[in-house]
């Protein structure tokens, strides 16, 4: 049975026992869009094996319905199986809008489903809205975040978008909310054999505070240099924050790993304070940090583009300033 007109779907990302933060962020945005679209409802689509426990959490975070398939064949994400199942669900229920996370898996899955349905997909949206014609306005970055463009999908349905983690805020839990759980099956997979099989998933949560949860982000770029890099860790420690980096610093191997990279192909952060050292300000990096509350940058080049995205700037070599800053913080704490 088709959903009532205007349904907004979000595709759930989970690890079996926990919902990804981005899924909750999408739920919050989906509620806003449903309200703008004339009081339509929000459905969360949950695919997995033994993940039913998450349905309640989806409802208290804003879902009116949870469309749920529990099947051992969906234990691991694969774009072929997930793509087939989701495409069937869309054809059956005909939602107006479908939102995906723009994680590695979500980007791939959204592109797969859009091609199967021959509908439009806007990638890595930084904002979503409904215009006065009732269309989804999808704001996407191009040229590494240098330009933002509005994208519409005027004719085909559903209108589909992917959204990077960290773009929208999470709604509060509301335990008084109630919703409906609709069970569906993955019968489209009966007799289907994947030409590609996921044989192993290896994931390691990085040690320490995740970058996107830190109130203070200490970021390092090319201008820091290998020898000075350990000072960033000390500074982050002193401020109970986390260390992030730019692409060149990651390529040099100074930073801990890909999870520390801030930018269009890395994390989006919006901490209380971002403090950057030796960061020149490529558009890719700026796209990932520009929404931080207070932005401080230290760079010896007064022309560095990063100063245009800073509240405070210090024109000095990061190598010189970092030890002095640590000393001053130490003195302050002793007082």
């Amino acid at each position, binding site marked *: 049975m088709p959903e009532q007109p205007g349904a907004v779907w979000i595709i759930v990302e989970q690890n079996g026992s926990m919902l990804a933060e981005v899924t909750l962020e999408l739920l919050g945005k989906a509620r806003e869009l449903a309200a703008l679209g004339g009081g339509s409802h929000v459905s969360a689509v949950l695919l997995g094996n033994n993940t039913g426990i998450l349905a309640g959490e989806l409802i208290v975070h804003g879902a009116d319905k949870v469309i749920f398939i529990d099947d051992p064949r969906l234990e*691991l994400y694969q*774009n072929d199986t997930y793509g087939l199942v989701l495409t069937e669900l869309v054809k059956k229920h005909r939602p107006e809008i479908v939102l995906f996370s723009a*994680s*590695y*898996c979500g980007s*791939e899955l959204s*592109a*797969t489903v859009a*091609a199967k349905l*021959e509908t*439009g*997909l806007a*990638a*890595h949206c930084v904002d979503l809205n409904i215009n006065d014609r009732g269309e989804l306005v999808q704001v996407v*970055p*191009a040229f590494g*975040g*240098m*330009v933002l*463009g*509005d*994208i*519409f*999908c005027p004719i085909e349905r559903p209108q589909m978008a992917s959204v990077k983690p960290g773009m929208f805020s999470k709604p509060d839990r509301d335990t008084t909310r109630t919703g409906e759980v609709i069970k569906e099956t993955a019968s489209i997979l009966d007799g289907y054999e994947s*030409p*590609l*099989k*996921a044989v*192993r*998933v*290896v994931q*390691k*949560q*990085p040690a320490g505070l995740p970058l996107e949860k830190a109130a*203070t982000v200490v970021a390092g770029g090319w201008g820091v240099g290998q020898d000075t890099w350990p000072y960033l860790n000390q500074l982050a420690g002193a*401020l109970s924050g986390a260390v992030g980096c730019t692409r060149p610093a990651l390529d040099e191997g100074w930073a801990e790993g890909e999870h520390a990279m801030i930018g269009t192909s890395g994390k989006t952060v919006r901490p*209380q*304070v971002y*403090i950057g050292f030796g960061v020149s300000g*490529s*558009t890719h990096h700026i*796209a990932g940090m*520009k929404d931080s*509350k*207070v*932005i*401080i*940058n230290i760079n010896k080049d007064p022309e560095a583009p990063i100063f245009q*995205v*800073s*509240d*405070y*700037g*210090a024109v000095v070599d990061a190598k010189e*300033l970092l030890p*002095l*800053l640590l000393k*001053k*913080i130490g003195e*302050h704490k002793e007082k």
Partner: protein
Amino acid sequence: MNIAVCIKPVPDPGHYHRITIDPATKLLERKGIPTIINPVDKNAVEAALQLKEQLGGKVVLVSMAPPDARETLKEGLAMGADEAYLLSDRAFAGADTLATARVLAAGLKKIGELDLILTGSESADGGTNHIPSQVGELMGFAHLNHVTELSMEASTIKIKTKIENGYVEYQGRLPLALGVAREINTPRYTTLMGVVMAQNKPFTTWGPGDLGLAPANTGLAGSPTQPGDLHMPQHGRRAELLEGAPEDMAGKIVAILRNAGVLA
């Protein structure tokens, strides 16, 4: 082993800060910004050449782009690819990812039997990540994106893809369409000999008629998504420069951190 690599000419990402929007026409101004091969597409060419060196066969390059993309394709030929196909026509302009994938898939089908289609995982300009999956879908090939390792043993292909904080290992069989990530390899440089040899390699240009595509299915007309306004993000910040000797600057930063509530 017949491998096709889809490559895209893009404005050099090192110059993106020079891109502006014409306030009157609302069109992008990118004068004087050089065009290069989309950086990660070079990793795709390298991966294809390595497989060819191991298993034999042929590497063909395919691009949907304006006629001046000839130079971009020649650079791929100079790296060692065997043939190039430029899919070019005014009717292809303004294509979104699905309309682009349709043209690429039509070209790939016309080229003939293919075992593997490689692309970069994303383009530097649009950055959607859609093309590897959408070309794969339209070709009817299984597909993966963000591939960081790739090896062939007998008839089994082993693949590693990136996920948040980790990776997934896959095993499968050809044919496949794969989007490669920059971690997969270091692309080789072109040599003078390569550049000279590239001049004599087969180069074919096809338009919509050659590909059996109706103009209504290509370019802006064939795109389910349509562009609206462009904006330059307004950051609205003007750095207050901290004066004084470095030690004074450090002191001022401590005060800012205290005011922001991140230093007790």
